[in-house]
């Protein structure tokens, strides 16, 4: 009962947040000097009437506040409107969301299933050669910018011819057999996954190592060891359960990044995901598309935090009932 009340309270808190985020972003986009019609204005073959029609179609002749209200009204009805090129925003998003999810889910699965054990292992073998090597590797991973790493891999693909240069499927994808399709997808995914994996793995591994070290240093672990428990039990039964809690909050953020976390890498690899779509939309000031993606990002972030809090409630009895203090990273 307690937890249901808590969850509904958190959901209600989202409403003012969404209003504020949408207002700020709407006004910033509209007040920026990007004129969606500048290209048309300088086209010698466009007549004045055509220009006026376009202005009316895009609602640019009305004051910003009216534009915002009419956007908000249709957003509430679930209508995301049309892009500046006249396509449905919802259709455009639907085309891209599965692609981005495919990429980010694989990356998150890989980083977590490799990063957590590595972090634990590094903490246990603290100050050994293995730990030092991991430290160096993860420093490199954290220092290298994702777009730069992506470009290096692209050059590698061109020089060796082992991997396709960007994209998600080959042009004859639809004529392939089932297994052919899987192989084709895998070939296209290797490079972007490598970039995202290498970069988020370093951070996650370091985080896990630090948490683990902190816990291993605490009194109750010393006590457990003194009691004569086996090292396996000390680490996996006592230390790990405490060390994993902060990681769950992190998992909430990972959830928020599911749809938006890979934009730069997507752009370099010409991956047909949301990131590329939104980047192009921002550059053209395509307001409905940008607003839809920003709203989606906000909702995902709030949802991610909520999920993390619920998971924390399940794993950590201490947080029960007073979660509003520990959560709310929004």
């Amino acid at each position, binding site marked *: 009962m307690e937890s249901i009340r808590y969850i509904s309270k958190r959901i209600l808190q989202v409403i003012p947040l969404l209003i504020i985020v949408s207002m700020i972003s709407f006004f910033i986009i509209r007040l920026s000097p*990007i004129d969606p019609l*500048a290209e048309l204005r300088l086209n010698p*073959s466009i007549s004045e009437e*055509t220009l006026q029609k376009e202005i009316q179609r895009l609602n640019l002749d009305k004051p910003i506040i009216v534009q915002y209200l009419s956007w908000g009204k249709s957003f509430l009805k679930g209508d995301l409107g049309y892009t500046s090129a006249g396509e449905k925003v919802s259709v455009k998003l639907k085309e891209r969301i599965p692609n981005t999810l495919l990429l980010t889910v694989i990356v998150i699965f890989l980083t977590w299933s490799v990063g957590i054990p590595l972090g634990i292992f590094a903490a246990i073998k603290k100050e050994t050669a293995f730990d030092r090597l991991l430290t160096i590797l993860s420093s490199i991973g954290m220092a290298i910018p994702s777009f730069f790493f992506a470009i290096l891999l692209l050059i590698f693909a061109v020089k060796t011819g082992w991997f396709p240069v960007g994209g998600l499927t080959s042009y004859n994808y*639809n004529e392939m057999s089932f297994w052919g399709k899987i192989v084709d997808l895998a070939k296209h995914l290797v490079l972007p996954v490598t970039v995202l994996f290498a970069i988020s793995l370093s951070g996650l591994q370091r985080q896990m190592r630090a948490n683990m070290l902190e816990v291993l240093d605490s009194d109750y672990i010393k006590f457990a060891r003194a009691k004569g428990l086996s090292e396996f039990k000390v680490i996996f039964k006592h230390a790990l359960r405490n060390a994993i809690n902060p990681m769950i909050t992190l998992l909430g953020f990972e959830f928020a990044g599911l749809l938006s976390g890979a934009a730069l890498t997507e752009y370099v690899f010409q991956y047909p995901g949301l990131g590329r779509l939104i980047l192009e939309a921002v550059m053209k000031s395509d307001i409905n598309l940008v607003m839809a993606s920003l709203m989606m990002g906000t909702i995902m972030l709030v949802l991610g935090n909520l999920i993390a809090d619920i998971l924390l409630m399940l794993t950590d009895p201490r947080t029960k009932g007073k979660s509003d203090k520990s959560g709310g990273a929004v």
Partner: protein
Amino acid sequence: MKRLLGILLTIFIIVIFLKGCIRADIPELEFSKHITPSIKNFVYPDENKNVVLNGVDYIKSQAPVGKFGGEIVISTIGEGPKTFNPCNTKDATSSSMAGLLYEGLLATDSRTGKVIPQLAKSFQIQGNDYTINLRRGIKWSDGKPITADDVVYTYNEIVFKGLGNPSTMDAMMIDGKLPKLEKIDDYTVKFSTSKPFAPFLRQLSYPIVPKHYFKTYSDKGASVFNAFLSPNTNPKKIISNGPFLLKEYVAAQRVVFVKNPNYYKINLNNEKLPYIDKLVYLIVGDTNNEILKFEAKEIDVIGLKGNNVARYKEKETESDYIIYNLGSDTGTLFIAINLNNRKNQGGKPYVSPVKQKWFRDKEFRKAIDYAIDRKSMIQNVAYGVAEPLFTSESNNSVYLNKNIKGHEANTKKAKEILSSAGFEFKNNKLYDKQGNLVEFDLYTNAGNLEREALGVMIKQDLEELGMKVNFKPVEFNSLVNKLTNTYDWDMVIMGLTGSPLEPHDGKNVWTSNGTLHMFNMGVKPEERFEWEKELDNLFDEGALKLTFEERKPIYDRYQEIIYEENPIIYLYSPVRISAIRKKIKNVYPSALGGLLYNLDEVYIDK
């Protein structure tokens, strides 16, 4: 000591590795002419002919007979097509793809620039009447015949109602009146214009669409019609008449076309074209990715820019591609000078009266024209891949006035012109008769690296004349606002694209009531310069004459005026260089059409 040695060794090894990454300098191209082969060496055998086989009016391609089968992969930069509705295309990608699906009555011959029949079998012009005879027996992709009803529907219910993209309607409007169209019989239609209007004929290249497929949507009004045939339409439902049919569209990845078995073009052996089975457009985000895809052999054709030209040229002999120089682009780069001498609503002059005196002085503008070094601009900014430009028609225009030869940069002559116009040099600075220091602003749009580099060079060239130039790159939108709204600018570096076939398209820039008459925006008829009056008359006159021979002298004179008066000083236009894999045959590159305008005739032979 040992540690220090270790560090030094590591640095040494890293340096050795990095050395491998540094490439020898790219050789410099002096002029684009160094890029062979010149496209004049590739002459198409003969004009295509109409033939009748089994009661069907085919076009017989005169290109050598090739092999059937295979596929060509090309690329399109950007976000891909926004619509496949040929009546509603507003960007180049959408219209070129819709152009593969739908053809018009007439077309422009990409080799000669002449108007040639396409869906029409032939056409006759008598006074203001244009009679068009259609091909008999040709079909839509669903097997229904293409008849005069489809033509009448396309023009009367789409073009003349301004549905979709209204630019064709705008262009067909003569003094506010649209032409009339009537059906004579099932295979003949007649257009009548209210008075002779030369640009009209080329507008008949507007794509013809199937009435039985489009009418349900066009009847529902603009918003339904604009959303019709969006990229996500089921390709099987699309009924078209072009050489290719849509096979699939995958957002942000590719568009695939297959050949249309009902197409009306045949080869010399009377076999139906096109040769290739499949045409794939890969949607790539930017030019860098396109280059990578070409190097990884994922695409077959690429347009080369700037320093890539020299690099590809160097590797050409050992590669599987040929580089073609397609000649000048239709784009032009120029400096416009603000000749405005009017006041804004607040009574303040748009341009300060001191500057007005200089800018409205023909000699001052001429001096600037002489001071500008186009040759070094081309070498340093355009990597040699451009041709100097001295007047408003681009170098590939059929109406280019070839008598205008241009001139070399000549600072000495420029100084003489200024002195004789009453300007004075003191301590390397230029002063006018009243003793005012000559100083003005030069704008361009920030972020355009080419124009920013040009600005720096122009500033240097003009400072040799003692002028003080404040070069100010500003955001594109504020620049457009200055040009079309507030008129508070002195000089600006800009570019526009023109038409290589129809000089009348420039009327918005050159006639005094045009919407882009930027150098003297909003001028009243009685305030016009003498030469502005002449330009107005020339444009009126040119549109009324129907033959090339009658029109040429008129448009020659208009280019002369611009060359003499210099309200806009032209700099250069880029040259198009493209590389294409050798396995693609029947390529007849042309300055107007580029490399692959004849996709229905090219074939693959390895």
